[in-house]
């Protein structure tokens, strides 16, 4: 099939669209929106065609590579993992772009918006397509840059500019870890080859890296007195990068603030592009995690904790977009948790996690676009001022309801009936139960199930507060134009049925990611290296466990219904400034204060002061001393340079005289 040869166009077309829209967008219809839309549509079609080919023949992955310099290459790799990501990214991005035509119609800076989102998409597609870790990192950084540009899209607002900076700097922490991981990986590979890198081998290409996993695993280094495998360090540093990009626990702080950008950007960041990059990175280097002892356990704990932690905060937020932001963090935590479960289920973890990623992309994009639709029409983001929006915006309401059901994971276990979130999220929770069953450690399961309950509560709280009841303020409001509701409907259909249609096929498809013509990895063998005990054939969970997620989901729905629809409990009494729990949650566990005041103001500032002292007084002192000394000497010496030719003449004559004497002396000596 010739379509494979067009694979390079997938990231290239949106990048080209970026250039065209950025420079010539002003004169075109709707700020040149049609160019990115067209480009991404073509990318999407190519991606889907390639993925269909892959589906029929999963062994034959698309791999093209050409020499870049020395031992590095640029290449394209489309295996099942990349294929589904490509389809998802380009498709969701396409829908968001179409939606943005309506949403951004009043913004004067449309060309910039569409150019930047096109570049964002291109960068993300580049991340997905890369066949080596360095190229992936380059695109990764490009994604970070675009997120900065887009979060700060309304840079006239100080809060937007600050949020953009925060996002950029926070993800940068992760990026530095990622880069450190790459560097350590590279130097380790160098050590393995004893400095003699074989000819014609691109060492940072994934297949080469995976080939060396046993050797990397055998290398050890001592950290804080305990011996750690080099592979674990590298894997955890990679995971650090993923933590930054995917907003996992310590570095999640940027994600809620990223709401400062246009809602479409939020949708793009939260659903299709940026945050999934971290999950994708872990999935992409999954064999490394498999081979690294303890790495997957760390991933699971961080993911599980994030899922729970973020969902508790989601309950009390009043800003509609912020609720969704915390929901994103929580769902990303689920994905990481799912990947961490590779410790018991091996490659199936990638399948489950990526399946959730794809489903999440659909329903989260839908949620955001619905929220955007509401904001567009109501003109506020505060849910306390909404209420009864469902009457004026029926399509939005229905699609939002579908998305909420998908997020909460409603469905009937044991059948093929259910929303997409049901199949993916519940699969993750079941896997955590399996993990508990085999290791006796039920903490990930508890994280998962409690987070599921909270998820259900906050999303239906949002739904009831926004769409039902009576309008709390006079906001007017109208249904959004068809360019906005169209994508909403498509996404709603996908959110509703995608899971049910593809579930088992999807797992099966992705399990073959690392066994094909490009790379062949023996997961069983790697699991032995990593000290994980894989479990096979696990379809005997108790009925209660199968029903548990749906039970907590319904429980969450009922709680929300009682509190926010029927008002059986007066929330205004609970939601007071005196309630410790509420205060804790509303202030987001004071993490802002912790980050700003303790870490930033005291720790970092103190360190900075020390650094400043060293820099300014000692290092600058040396430098300034040298320069001051030079200047002082120059001041003295320049007196000689009077600019009076006579002085020069005097000097010349004196020099000549002395030289002659000197010569005379030397000649006489000889």
């Amino acid at each position, binding site marked *: 099939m010739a379509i494979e040869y067009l694979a390079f166009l997938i990231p290239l077309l949106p990048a080209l669209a970026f250039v065209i829209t950025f420079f010539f967008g002003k004169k075109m219809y709707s700020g040149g929106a049609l160019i990115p839309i067209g480009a991404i549509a073509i990318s999407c079609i190519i991606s889907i065609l390639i993925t269909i080919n892959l589906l029929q023949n999963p062994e034959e992955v698309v791999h093209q590579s050409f020499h870049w310099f020395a031992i590095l290459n640029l290449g394209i790799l489309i295996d099942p993992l990349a294929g589904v990501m490509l389809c998802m990214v380009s498709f969701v991005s396409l829908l968001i772009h179409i939606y943005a035509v309506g949403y951004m119609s009043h913004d004067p800076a449309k060309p910039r918006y569409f150019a930047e989102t096109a570049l964002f998409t291109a960068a993300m597609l580049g991340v997905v397509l890369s066949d080596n870790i360095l190229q992936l990192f380059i695109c990764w950084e490009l994604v970070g840059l675009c997120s900065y540009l887009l979060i700060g899209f309304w840079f006239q607002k100080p809060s937007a500019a600050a949020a953009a900076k925060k996002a950029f700097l926070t993800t940068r922490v992760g990026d530095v870890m990622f880069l450190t991981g790459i560097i350590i990986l590279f130097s380790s590979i160098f050590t393995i080859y004893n400095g003699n890198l074989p000819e014609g081998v691109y060492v940072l290409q994934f297949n080469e890296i995976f080939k060396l996993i046993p050797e990397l695993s055998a290398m050890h280094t001592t950290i804080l007195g305990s011996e750690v495998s080099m592979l674990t360090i590298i894997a955890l540093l990679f995971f650090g990068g993923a933590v930054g990009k995917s907003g996992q626990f310590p570095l999640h702080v940027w994600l809620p603030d990223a709401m400062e950008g246009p809602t479409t950007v939020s949708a793009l960041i939260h659903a299709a592009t940026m945050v999934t990059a971290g999950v994708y990175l872990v999935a992409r280097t999954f064999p490394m995690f498999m081979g690294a002892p303890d790495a997957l356990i760390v991933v699971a704990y961080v993911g599980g904790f994030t899922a729970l932690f973020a969902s508790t905060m989601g309950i009390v937020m009043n800003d509609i977009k912020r609720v969704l932001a915390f929901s994103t963090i929580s769902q990303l935590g689920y994905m990481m948790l799912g990947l961490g479960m590779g410790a018991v289920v091996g490659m199936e973890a990638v399948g489950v996690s990526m399946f959730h990623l794809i489903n999440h992309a659909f329903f989260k994009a839908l949620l955001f676009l619905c929220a955007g639709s509401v904001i567009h029409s109501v003109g506020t983001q505060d849910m306390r001022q909404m209420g009864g929006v469902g009457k004026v915006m029926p399509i939005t309401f229905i699609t939002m309801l579908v998305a909420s059901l998908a997020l909460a994971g409603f469905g009937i276990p044991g059948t093929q009936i259910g929303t997409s979130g049901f199949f993916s999220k519940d699969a993750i929770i079941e896997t955590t139960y399996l993990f508990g069953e085999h290791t006796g450690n039920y903490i990930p399961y508890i994280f998962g199930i409690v987070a599921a309950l909270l998820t259900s509560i906050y999303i239906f709280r949002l739904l009831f507060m926004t769409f039902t009841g009576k309008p709390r303020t006079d906001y007017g409001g109208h249904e959004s134009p068809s360019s906005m509701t169209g994508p909403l409907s498509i996404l709603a259909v996908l959110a509703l049925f995608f899971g049910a249609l593809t579930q088992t096929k999807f797992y099966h498809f992705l399990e073959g990611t690392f066994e094909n013509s490009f790379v062949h990895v023996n997961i069983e063998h790697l699991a032995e290296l990593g000290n994980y005990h894989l479990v096979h054939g696990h379809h005997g969970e108790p009925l209660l466990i199968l029903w548990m997620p749906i039970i907590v989901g319904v429980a969450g729905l009922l709680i929300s219904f009682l509190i926010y629809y029927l008002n059986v409990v007066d929330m205004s009494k609970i939601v007071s400034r005196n309630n410790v729990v509420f205060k804790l949650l509303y202030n987001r566990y004071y993490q802002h204060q912790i980050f700003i005041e303790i870490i930033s103001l005291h720790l970092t500032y103190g360190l900075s002061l020390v650094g400043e002292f060293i820099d300014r007084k000692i290092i600058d002192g040396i430098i300034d001393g040298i320069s001051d000394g030079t200047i002082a000497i120059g001041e003295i010496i320049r007196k000689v340079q009077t600019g009076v*030719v006579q002085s020069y003449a005097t000097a010349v*004559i004196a020099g000549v005289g002395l030289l002659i004497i000197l010569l005379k002396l030397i000649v006489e000596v000889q």
Partner: protein
Amino acid sequence: MIPLTYYLILSSIVFSIGLYGIMSQRNGVRLLMSVELMLNSANINLVAFSSYNDDMSGQVFTLFSIALAAAEAVIGFAILLSIFRMRDMINIDDINILRW
């Protein structure tokens, strides 16, 4: 007859005086006068060698040199005059546009 060395010593003395003038004088006119002295010392050398070697070309060169000295003096004074017109002084110290 007087040894050639005497003339050469005389020439070098005059040259040194001119040199001292060039180095120490701050007045443009005096500078030029010092230059004239140095040129003359060179001329003495030329003529002395010419006579003591019975070779006319030294004297011919002296003629050339005198002509050149005249030209140099004319140009030099023209420049001085121009500077004087511009600045109302010819103190070399104050003509410092070459200075750092």
